[in-house]
Each structure stands twice: as C-alpha cells, then as structure tokens.
C-alpha cells in the first residue's frame, strides 16, 4: 500500500467509495506494482478479496506483499483472501493426465470459444457465497465489502479468448461485484507497443482497453516517459476519474510521475523528481 497514492486517490483503508471499478493499464511500462498496492490496500481494509492471479505464482504475490507488510498466507487461512493461481490450474489442462482432476475455471484453455463463463462462476461463487457460509459456520470474523482483483486480463487474449468474451466477463463481474454486492473491482490490462499506429485496424489489446475504459469509474494508465528511459523516474501515471453526476459524466485527469522502490512507490508532480531538483 503506497500512502502517496492513497492521498492522490483520496482514500484510506477505513474510508473508500464502494461500487467502484478501477482499471489499471499500461503501455511500454509495467503497472503490476499498482496491483500489489490494491491487494494490500483491500486486505488492510478488511475486505473479502478474490484475487485472480493469472500471470504469476502465489509465491510471487506473497513475497511482494510481505514487503508491503501484509501476509497473504495468513489472509488465506483466515478466509479473507481467495487466491486463484492461473499458472497452476492451467497445467492440468495443457498437459492432460488421468490422475489429477482438471480445473473447471480455466476450461477456456481447452476451447477458447466457450468464453469465460466458468471463470465468472468461480468469482461469483467465491464472493457471494461468503455471507451464507459465515452464518452456517458461525465464523467470528466478519469481512467488509467484496473485492475482485485480476492480474492481468490481457493474458487471456494471448491464450486465445476473444476481446468480446473478456469484455463480457468484466461486465458480468461489474454487475455482480460492484452493483449487486456493492464491492470494488480492480483489473489490469497491458497493451502492446506504440499507440495510434496509422494502419487503421485496432489491435486486440487496444480494443480491450477502450472497452474497459468505457466501463470503469477510475482509471490509472501507466506509461513510460515520453522522453525515453530514465533510471530515476520509472514512468508516468495518468489518473482519470469519471463521476456520474446528474445529467452527465464529469471527468477529471491528473498526471504524476512515479518511481518504484524496494518497499513501495513514490509519486510526484511532473519534473519534481529528486534526480532533477
């Protein structure tokens, strides 16, 4: 959890708006450090978290969260965190064997045309069943609003899922998590290469980004510096709020530069890096 980002977004673990869909995207840079921020943020806020880790192993997220002061293993044991490890689940489908049972949630790997229905079912059951289960088991711990985190959606495109299916998935998740359960949702999309190439046809990850940007209520777009590589400034992040107020949407944009440290990240206004001043 990066406190500087919290003050930019004007949230704390004790008070944050519910029902938000936060889109994290990047281009020619790496925005995964923001996923770690939101993971530790919502775990501290005592939310019930469902994490779809599609690109890294649990030990990676666990090691980074430890540096940010949150133990994923404990959160998992307490039932606060439901962790879906895509890499592990995929192997049983990619290398079919008689002995181990096949994962249902990743069945799009067998045939991408079926879409992400089973993955959505996994999300829905893990987040919405929690209330009833707690009554039955009479758990002492009571968790806050449900949160869905996905790292990252664009890998689904690499695995053959169509853009439409991914947009359907995010729309279903938004309807369930944000609207019905009044929880939050954070999704990461990573885009290829250069923006606005003149060849006309949109590339699939760009189409996905456009679709999701339309759905989301807050977007954080990470880019490399337009002036090129720099060791002391790792890139810039554009924060864009869209608030629906009465008759229309109200947009507000802010641009910050950032640097990722060992145990956090610092955000500063353009041109005010320590290396420059």
């Amino acid at each position: 959890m990066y406190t500087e980002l919290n003050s930019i977004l004007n949230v704390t673990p004790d008070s944050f708006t519910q029902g938000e869909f936060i889109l994290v995207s990047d281009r020619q840079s790496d925005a995964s450090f923001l996923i770690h921020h939101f993971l530790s943020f919502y775990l501290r806020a005592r939310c019930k978290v469902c994490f779809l880790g599609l690109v890294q192993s649990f030990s990676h997220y666990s090691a980074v969260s430890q540096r940010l002061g949150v133990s994923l293993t404990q959160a998992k044991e307490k039932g606060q965190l439901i962790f879906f490890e895509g890499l592990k689940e995929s192997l049983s489908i990619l290398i079919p064997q008689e002995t181990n049972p096949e994962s249902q949630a990743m069945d799009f790997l067998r045939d991408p045309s079926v879409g992400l229905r089973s993955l959505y079912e996994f999300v829905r059951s893990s987040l919405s069943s929690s209330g009833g289960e707690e009554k039955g088991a009479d758990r002492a711990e009571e968790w806050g609003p449900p949160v869905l985190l996905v790292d990252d959606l664009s890998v689904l495109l690499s695995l053959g899922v169509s853009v439409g299916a991914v947009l359907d998935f995010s729309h279903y998740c938004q309807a369930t998590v944000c609207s019905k359960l009044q929880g939050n949702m954070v999704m990461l999309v990573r885009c290829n290469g250069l923006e606005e190439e003149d060849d006309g046809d949109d590339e699939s990850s760009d189409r996905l980004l456009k679709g999701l940007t339309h759905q989301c209520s807050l977007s954080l777009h990470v880019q490399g510096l337009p002036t090129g590589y720099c060791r002391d400034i790792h890139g810039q992040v554009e924060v864009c709020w869209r608030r629906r107020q009465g008759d229309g949407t109200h947009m507000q944009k802010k641009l910050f530069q950032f640097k990722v440290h060992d145990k956090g990240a610092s955000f500063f206004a353009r041109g005010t890096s320590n290396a420059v001043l």
Partner: protein
Amino acid sequence: ISSMATPGNSADKPLAERSPFTTTSFQKKTRSKLISIPGTRPSVQNGQLLVSTGVTSLDYLLGGGLAVGTVLLIEEDQYDSYSHMIVKYFLAEGVVCQHELFMAAAQDDPDDILQELPHPILDDVVIHNPVEQPTLSCKCQDSLDSMKIAWRYQNLPKVQSTLASSSRFGHYYDVSKTMEPDIRQAAKCHRFFLPEHLTQSSPAQCLMLGSYSALLKSLQEVIHREGFDLANAMSKSRNILRIGLHSLGSALWGDDLSFHVNPRHRHALTTFLYGLRALLRSSLSVAVVTISSHLIQDRALMGSITRLCDNAIALESFKGSERETNPLCKDYHGLLHVHQVPHLNCLASYLPDHKDLAFKLKRKQFSIERLHLPPDLSETVSRVSRGELAGAATVASPCGSGTFGNKHLDF
C-alpha cells in the same frame, strides 16, 4: 531445503553459501540444512537464486544472472548467428557447473548443437576451487602452462573494461575450439528433436498448443522424473535444469506466424509460453528461448510473447546491413536491446544504467558494452577545415612560417 531461495519460496531467503575463496574472518552463519547448488548464487537485490548465462556481461546486464524459474527471451539477429552463440554459452555454462541440460530444436539435431559448445577457459576455477571440478584438472594444466612469460599477471583479475560483475560466477569460453567430448558427456543432457515426435501424437493432447504440445509434455516428464519439481522428491540432491529452446515460432515448429498476418495458430506459441512459465515457476529450472522475431508478421504478437517471458533482449547484428561497413560501427558486431527486465518476487526490479548497448564477439569473450563512437584518430577527417582556418588566421605567427594549413602539427 525449505530455505532455498527459489521462486517457489523466496519469502524467507537466506543467502546460500558463497564460494569458498572469498573468506574473511567474518563468516555468515548458515543453517546446516541449506543445500548450495554449484553454479548458483543468490541475488544481491532480492535474494533470488541466480545462475549464469555463460556470458559474464550479459549476467551483469540482467542484474547478476538469470533467476531460477524464469525465461530469457532472445530475439534472434537476422542470421541467427549470435543468438545461437548465446544459447551455446548458456548450455556450456551448464556443463561446466554440472547442471542438467534440456535442448529442444526443430531445425538442427540437438546433439549437433551440443557438440559445438565452446571450450571453457577454466584456469582460475581450478586454482580456487579444485574440489568442484576434479575431472577437468588435467585440461586446465595446459592452459596454466601457456602463460610462461607474463606469469606475474596470470592471477590478476581480467581487465574489466567491459560490463562485468565483480565476483567469479560465470566462466569464459574460447569459441575457436569446441568443448572436449569427455567434459561434455559428463553432463546429463535431455534432448527433444521435433521431427522425432511428429508421428507419436497422443490422443488427449491439448488442441490449443499444436505442435508445442509434445514439447511441453516432454519437458514436464523430465522435470518430474529427474526431481526438479519443488513440490515433491525432496530427498534427491538438488540440481538445476537448463532448458534451451531454439527458434520457436519458426515454420519448422509447424507454426504459421511467419507467413500470415492473421495466422491460424495465433495463440499456440503464447499458450505454450504460458505453460512453460507454469512449469518453470514450480521447478528448479531456467530457460532460454530464441525467437526469430523479424520473421513474425504480426507485430502485436511479439508484445504478448515478450510479456509471457521474464527477461527479453533483442540482438540486431550488423551483418548484411549497411552498418557493417560504417566506420562508426567497426568496433561492434551488433546492437543489443533490452526489452524487458524481470519483476519476480520484488517490486523494484534491477534496471540497467543505460539502454544504448552494443555487443561484439571476441575469440574468448562475448562482450556487451555501452555503445559509443570510436575516437577519431585519423589524420584527414574534420580537422582539415579547422587547420585551414587556423592557418589563415595566423599568417603572421612566428611558428607557422612556411607551412600553411596542410598539417595540424606545425611548429
């Protein structure tokens, strides 16, 4: 074993034992349970277990070496000469460190590739660490004897004008000679030659993977059978599996990425890389993958391929391009681009100081250097005009009597 700094469990990372020759009076207390694998060292940044790529300056560029459990993607240069060389260095380093090898190719027989490994230069390894390489000592004796006149200098560290990490970890190789067969045969090699696997397609293979299905299955079998799995077989002595995958995505792998803008098996390679990452993350293995990216028609695909690997570098050789004859490039054989640095088990990854890099292949070293223009030492260029100007201005000067503007050094 639980304390080994591998991608599986590096949360509690102890520093594995350093090589014995860096002894000081202060010694780090290490637990007796700890098993150190030869040819590995923990990263100074995040305690990850690293292995050398066999190219010392490439190790430095990657932040000390390749983290175990990661994939290094090399985008091939146009004729695949230098990228092929790096794969050979990577495998040769595995032979010297007594790691196990897995080589897969569709074009050349993997055995042929293994026969062409460069000859290791092992002098300092034997001096410092005679126990580790008992079989190699006789070979190293002649390389010791070779330095008769300048014997005083033989124990000095090699001159570090190029990028190199300070401690000895990788080795140097002589590319003009091939590795002796008996050294090579001491290492355990697994091979995968695609033409041999074309007929035996299992009924239950994953359709998405296409021809890579057999490769992934074979990899998983080796990892499982030889005990590289982190989950089970704890009792076996630990070793590293080095995986070399040559020219993935080429037509010989049955992929049509290089023919069409919208290939039919568009997702076969990316799905394979996803499966490869899943395998590596749960085992003590490390992979180098080369892809001839200039042949892939769909440019956007290269981005997804890069993101599914951990490290990504691209080689751009001057061979065949007009830069080959350009005097500014005469010191180098090509350019090296760093496309991606790994973010594994840490937030802040190691970042190189600068990204303008060039490489050259010398007989004993593949070196990566910061690109700079050579100093202009020739007599004729660009200084003539200044000399003429100066000559015209100082007609009356006492030193310049007689010679005007033709030489720069006139007294």
